[in-house]
């Protein structure tokens, strides 16, 4: 203990010198630059609809972050209608208070392309999220859907196992949405490596659960020995799951799908055995990527359309084996969290 006085003295000297320099640290010009670039900036989010887990998750996190830098976040709800979405974007672009950044989730490869170009011409940064499009945005933030398809295929091959019938069914979304087309390409890419695995049917659900149920019922009757099914979205995979349940084949058919990792939609269904595996996007990370890109763009001084990076979100196939309490995010908790602030 004899060093104690010395230590105290040293600490005192240190803190004295620290506080002496403190006024200089407060002169860091960066926060002022940051605030000037971001404060009062208008961010408008136009997803395909506001009523589903991804959009609600994005909004909750964006709200928190945009509030923190003093910006304004607005959302538009096209409610699954391309026309309503196009109208919302047109209205936003030509409004008096133009946004500084438009975050758009496109319906398909082409519908919004012209509008988004117009937005950039008007000096608005366009961040494309989740659904790719034929257009060079200021950043694409979302999944690499081909890779997502590959992970689904790997999961179904593993779920079926080497001693199964090796017959797989696909329930695609449609033939225009990039997420559906690229997923299919990714799946086929992997299955080429497993020539003994065979796709026996590949109907479309048109993203509708009842249609998914009906086509899966037919698929299972035509090929009673199917060992695995990939449904292209957890929004309609409840239908494929119902068909499997109705056929009493829960133990035989390994159902793989993809989703935004919301607890009630994905993790609860993995836990109760409805889904064998779900390839999930890490929603929180994806949204924080959007935030980082927004902060970068607003400070970059570059003209909209200058660069077009792809910021892919980490994808992971979650199964019962690697399911953890924090594998999913809880929409209710997140919304309650934002509401409390």
């Amino acid at each position, binding site marked *: 203990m004899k060093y104690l006085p010395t230590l105290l003295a040293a600490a005192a000297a240190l803190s004295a010198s620290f506080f002496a320099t403190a006024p200089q640290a407060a002169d860091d010009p960066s926060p002022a630059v940051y605030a000037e670039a971001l404060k009062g900036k208008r961010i408008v989010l136009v997803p395909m*609809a506001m*009523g*589903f*887990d991804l959009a*609600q998750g994005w909004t909750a996190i964006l709200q928190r972050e945009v509030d923190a830098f003093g910006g304004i976040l607005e959302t538009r709800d096209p*409610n*699954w*209608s391309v026309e309503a979405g196009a109208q919302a974007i047109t209205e936003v672009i030509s409004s008096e208070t133009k946004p500084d950044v438009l975050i758009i989730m496109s319906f398909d490869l082409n519908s919004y392309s012209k509008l988004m170009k117009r937005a950039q011409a008007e000096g608005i940064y366009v961040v494309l999220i989740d659904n790719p499009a034929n257009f060079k945005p200021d950043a694409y933030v979302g999944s690499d859907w081909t890779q997502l398809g590959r992970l689904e295929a790997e999961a179904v091959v593993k779920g079926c196992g080497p001693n199964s019938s090796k017959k797989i069914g696909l329930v695609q979304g*449609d*033939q225009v949405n990039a997420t559906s087309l690229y997923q299919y390409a990714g799946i086929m890419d992997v299955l080429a490596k497993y020539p003994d695995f065979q796709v026996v*049917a*590949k*109907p*479309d659900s*048109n*993203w*509708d*659960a*009842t249609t998914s*149920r*009906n*086509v899966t*019922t*037919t*698929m299972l*009757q*035509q090929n009673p020995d199917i060992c695995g099914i990939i449904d292209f979205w957890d*929004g*309609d995979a*409840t*239908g494929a*799951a*119902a068909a499997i*349940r*109705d056929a009493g084949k829960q133990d035989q058919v390994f159902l793989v799908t993809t989703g935004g990792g919301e607890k*009630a*939609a994905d993790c609860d269904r993995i836990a109760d055995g409805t889904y064998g595996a779900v390839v999930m996007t890490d929603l929180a990370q994806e949204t924080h990527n959007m935030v980082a890109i927004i902060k970068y763009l607003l400070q970059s001084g570059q003209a909209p359309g200058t660069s077009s990076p792809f910021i892919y979100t980490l994808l992971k196939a979650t199964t019962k084996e690697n399911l953890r309490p924090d594998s999913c995010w809880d*929409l*209710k908790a997140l919304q309650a969290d934002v509401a409390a602030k």
Partner: protein
Amino acid sequence: MQGGVPGNDMKSWLNWKEMNQERIVLLIAILIFIVASFTLPGFFTPDNIVAIVRSVSVLGILALGMAIVVIGRGIDLSAVAIMAMSVAWYLQLLNDGMADGAAFLLVISGVLAIGLLNGFLVAYAEVPAIFVTLASGSFVFGYVRSQLIAQDAVPVPLGHWMQLFGGVRYFDIPVEVFIFAALAFLIFLFLRYTKWGRYVYFAGDNPVSARNAGMPVRPMLVLRYVISALIAFIAGLLTAASLHSINTRVVNSTLLYDIVLVAVIGGIGLSGGKGGVRNVLFGAALIGIMLNAMTIIDIPLIYQSLIKSSILLAAIIIDGFLNPRDEQTAQQGDI
């Protein structure tokens, strides 16, 4: 009235001159069924036939409700909104912890209220049905979606009776097939053997003379919209029971057009006064058989829509050739 009278003698059924849309549709359905049975492996099996009937059960149930309204010279464009939103609200109440009985009572009162509102506006305020129900459908969707539920898709709570109900089978046949059959039979009895059921045809054929003859035309109109709303609620419950959730996105889908299509393609004229349960069954059979066969062949959805619409168009064109419209057959209000 002509199409609504069952008991046509069977001899005239296949007479070329007597062909009408209903028979053309039935013949096309049978034709596709026979061809598919011979050419498609696994088509003509008990399981697949059950699957066909089941795939059109909910559609058929909704078309029954639509049929009652259309025969009475009306149309109910709020059916799909009522179906999805009533059940979504019910499930949301359950998920929020409300007692089952109370939630059910609340929701069914809401359904009755919308049916009554539709009926009242059409019958007493005399607003055209197409506008009333278009508006009330949008209102139901908008109000429930924005005020009463949290998300597009609402899951059935774990262990709720609907989960078990959706899995009920008799002789390996899903429960909704029996409910479709029972409702079809009940509505057949209503239209055929009850006084108010018969009045539906008179009111649909000529509302003014029906009223002059002393029929309670307006209260009957209200009743039809209430029945249609209740049937939509049943269809919604069955959908949720099978899928263990209800997705309100269905309101934006083409389901509403499919319902009108099933009723109209089967031969229920939009001008009212014609048709019956049989027409709905034929229309549903054609749609079910076509979709099933195309799924077995693995035809992509866009081509399925094209083939479906071509066949339906063909049926209408053949009908147009065989039964040309003129001053005698055309009615006021014909759409």
